[in-house]
């Protein structure tokens, strides 16, 4: 019996594929998608949060701890978005490579310029992120910086493939430039929207549209009847081009506002993989920007 168990364990150990690739654990799907653009087949990415899950409310599942234990690099959004589960995953992973301060601990927000950093904050304001708006993944400008940062870190950890990563980064840069030309041709300047959560602020700054109000009265707090009344008033008084919900939040509220006012509502992917067209980061951006027109 003991021999059989021992054999079983040994075979399970051997069953793990022999890999030369850099193993990456990414908290969010978009991080995995950008990493894939830079690392292609030389990396193996495991994504901890599924596209249909809200990153604000995730829990440290044992399978996430296991992925972190095996990772060479742990990549995360930062700006406190993963504060509810990531510190625990990192500690429980028993993996020295991904501890804070190590090269394998990659906070993608270090490469970007956060917006909406509040000067003072307390929790009576709701779930405000004190380091700034953490949803920079809809920002082409910032995503390019993240991709550049990833290429540097990949080259440091896997110097043999540095040239490969550099040429992939150049390809990404070229593709992004072409796309940006298409995206900036879209008539988004001066448009006004109502959104559920503060997700599209970076994009609005880059493409000149404005989020007039939020369905959430405060970040993370579901809307009260009074707040919905205020939104209805606003929709009557001002021209609002659309009400924005995502696949994980605000669909019901947006639909009911549409029924009452006739202002169209749009359901957008909140991350890569949340809809069929949002297969990768470019697909997600295409879908979001087209829907905003």
């Amino acid at each position, binding site marked *: 019996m003991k021999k059989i168990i021992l054999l079983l364990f040994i075979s399970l150990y051997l069953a793990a594929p022999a890999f030369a690739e850099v193993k990456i654990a990414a908290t969010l799907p978009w991080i995995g998608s950008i990493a894939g653009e830079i690392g292609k087949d030389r990396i193996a990415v495991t994504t901890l949060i599924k596209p249909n899950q809200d990153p604000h409310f995730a829990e440290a*599942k044992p399978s996430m701890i296991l992925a972190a234990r095996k990772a060479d690099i742990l990549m995360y959004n930062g700006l406190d978005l993963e504060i509810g589960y990531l510190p625990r995953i990192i500690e429980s992973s028993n993996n020295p490579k991904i501890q804070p*301060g190590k090269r394998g601990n990659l906070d993608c927000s270090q490469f970007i310029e956060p917006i909406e950093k509040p000067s003072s904050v307390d929790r009576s304001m709701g779930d405000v992120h004190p380091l700034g708006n953490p949803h920079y993944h809809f920002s082409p400008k910032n995503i390019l910086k993240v991709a550049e940062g990833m290429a540097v870190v990949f080259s440091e950890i896997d110097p043999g493939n540095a040239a490969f990563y550099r040429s992939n980064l150049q390809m990404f840069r070229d593709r992004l430039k072409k796309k940006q030309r298409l995206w900036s041709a879209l008539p988004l300047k001066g448009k006004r929207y109502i959104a559920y959560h503060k997700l599209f602020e970076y994009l609005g700054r880059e493409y000149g549209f404005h989020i007039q109000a939020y369905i959430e009265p405060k970040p993370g707090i579901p809307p009260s009847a009074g707040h919905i009344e205020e939104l209805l008033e606003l929709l009557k008084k001002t021209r609002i081009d659309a009400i924005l919900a995502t696949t994980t939040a605000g669909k019901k509220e947006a639909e009911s506002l549409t029924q009452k006012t006739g202002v169209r509502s749009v359901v957008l992917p909140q991350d890569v993989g949340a809809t069929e067209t949002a297969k990768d980061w470019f697909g997600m951006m295409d879908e979001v920007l087209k829907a905003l027109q």
Partner: protein
Amino acid sequence: MKQWAVLLFIILSLSLSSRAYGADIESRLKALEETLLQQGKTIEEQRKVIIELKEELRNTRTEETAGTEKKPIEEPKAQKATGLFGASALTNPNISLVLNTFAYSSNLNKKELELRNIPGYTAAGIENRKGFNLDSAELFLFAPVDPYFNLYATIPVTENGAEVEEAYFVTTSLPYGFQVKGGKFKSSFGRINSQHPHAWDFVDIPLVYKAFSGPEGITEKGAQLTYLTPLPFYTLLGAEALQGENAILFGPDAKPGPHAYTLFAKASFDLTDNSTILFGPSVMAGKTKTDSVTAGAGFRGASTLYGLEFTYKWKPSKTQSIIVQSEYLYRRQNGDLENTVALTTGPLKRAQDGLYLQTVYQLNRWRAGARYDVLSLFKDDYILAGANQDFGKKPWRASGMLEFNPTEFSRIRLQYNHDKTARDGKTSQELFLQFVFGIGAHGAHPF
């Protein structure tokens, strides 16, 4: 600007004085010379002022640019240091305070509650007072010590003072999936034991833990080693060496040195993207010297506690989830029971078991749960001097709770217990209204 004003003034005054040119040329020329001299002086003075002003302006400008240059360098650094753990942890550790307070009511009177023990298991009664109770204001401190250790401390402050409930380090840099924890900590035996009371899904601890380890669970001084295997599914193996001071299971005077040891394993699979199971066995063994068995008697011997845990979680979105959780515990005890009144000693063998099964359903900010507790489920041996004692019916309890969580930092919970633990057929109907609030650093949610 000022220079131009001065020039304009000179030209105006010159033209005005030239217009007045006429009768007495000599005196007028003198007057003109004087005014010119005076004007020259004022021009000199004003130039000096202008130079001073320019210098001042230059100084303030360099200060400003220095300021803007500093900011972009500082900001990314600050993000790097704090993006994971919140506010800066360099000068202060992360601190949070959790208030756990509740109102309690029961159909039994004060004396009946004090004497309400679980015969055959524990002599301890109910400590809750009818009316308002303060469980504790619990202070948590944590921060990385250096690149090799993290430090945690839990200091519940109660009306009786503050105590160090937990204070331990955890290694972060051991290779091959190993980790060492040392200090005073909650044992990783089973599932609910390592959770803090405010994180439980019900106000009170399950009966099995109350009967076998006391209402606070097993918190011990000692060391723990865990190994997270690289198997394709999550498997954590662990061992603990503990001082063995738990008043019910072991007792500080059972042996001078460490005298309790734990082994545990936890395995977990994701059945789908939204559902996960976690299960595993635990065992804890050690020497025992306690007077908790029954009033007026002391026990000396050895105890072994076996446990099996099972948790199923389904969480398709943030608005909805189901948790099903159960633990089965089996305790064997062998030794001598000494009656401290009659001064008689007899061998005592106890082999008892029990389980709890609970489920919690969450919809938006509301959670509703049910729990069933039972002792003496399959085994109810209390063999004193060769004779199995009969204490009556199986102790059991059924609980229902309803929670409202305005945010993840606040919780209001109503709980009802139908308690049949005294084995005498008498029911205690308990009602709790609990308030849990947390402020300060954001703790991570365990699975």
